């Protein structure tokens, strides 16, 4: 295995920590240098970030519709607190 592809493997294993900003500074600097030189890894990093972003943007709001909330409150005998 070439040194270049070893670095690609290393990036793959550290990818979550890297995009979450939780990678050790030294390793982070190494990977950023590698990403500058490696088109494929740069695309993987960017498309991974974008994939997560798209899921977060399309995530429905954390709110119950009125009828789901009402049925829940009745089920829990909390109907006195329905407003």
């Amino acid at each position, binding site marked *: 295995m070439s040194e270049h592809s070893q670095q690609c493997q290393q990036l793959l294993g550290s*990818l*979550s920590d890297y995009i979450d900003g939780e990678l050790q500074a030294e390793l982070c600097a190494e990977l950023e240098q590698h990403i500058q030189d490696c088109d494929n890894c740069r695309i993987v990093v960017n498309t991974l970030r974008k994939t997560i972003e798209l*899921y977060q943007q*399309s995530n429905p709001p*954390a709110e*119950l519709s009125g009828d*789901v909330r009402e049925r829940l409150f009745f089920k829990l005998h909390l109907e*006195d607190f329905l407003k």
Partner: protein
Amino acid sequence: MLDSISLEEIKAGDREAFARLVDDTSGHIYRVALQILGDAQDAEDVLQETYLKAFNSLADFEGRSSLSTWLYRIAINEALMLVRKRKPQSISVDEGLADDDPNGEGMEIVNWCCLPEGELLSSEARRFLDQAIQNLPDSLRVVFVMRDLEGLSIQETSQALGLSESNVKTRLLRARLNLRQEVSVYFGGKMQEESRR
């Protein structure tokens, strides 16, 4: 969530405090159940069962995790029980995983980030995203939902799922790479369609 909730009041049987707890957390619990199950009626059943169980076992809650993490844990267990009833062959959240493509060979390398936002978030693309997340193994989907959609930390996710932090990290990476691959194939196809026109 839960800034205004007193655990002591809830444990003492204060129904108004419990109603506030339900109002502050139920949207998140319902959304998690919906993402795991992909069905609104099943998600509502899990929602109701979660709070019934929580109410009946409040005395046992020792506060080793936050109240919201505890509720997430109850909801996830309920949702996964329902999944197992529907698909007895599906694996549980604490079982091992096949090592799918550990070397990253066969990864889709297409730079689709430049597509316009309108195309990335079109109704067709959203349906694809929903389907791709439902196609993930349950053991990966729950980790992705808790960490990336609900925004829990690795530690909170591990508490909610009863997994070690290293296990959560491994599953999170696989879930993310799996979704990136599916989404890249999808948008790569869209880019090819565009270029043929």
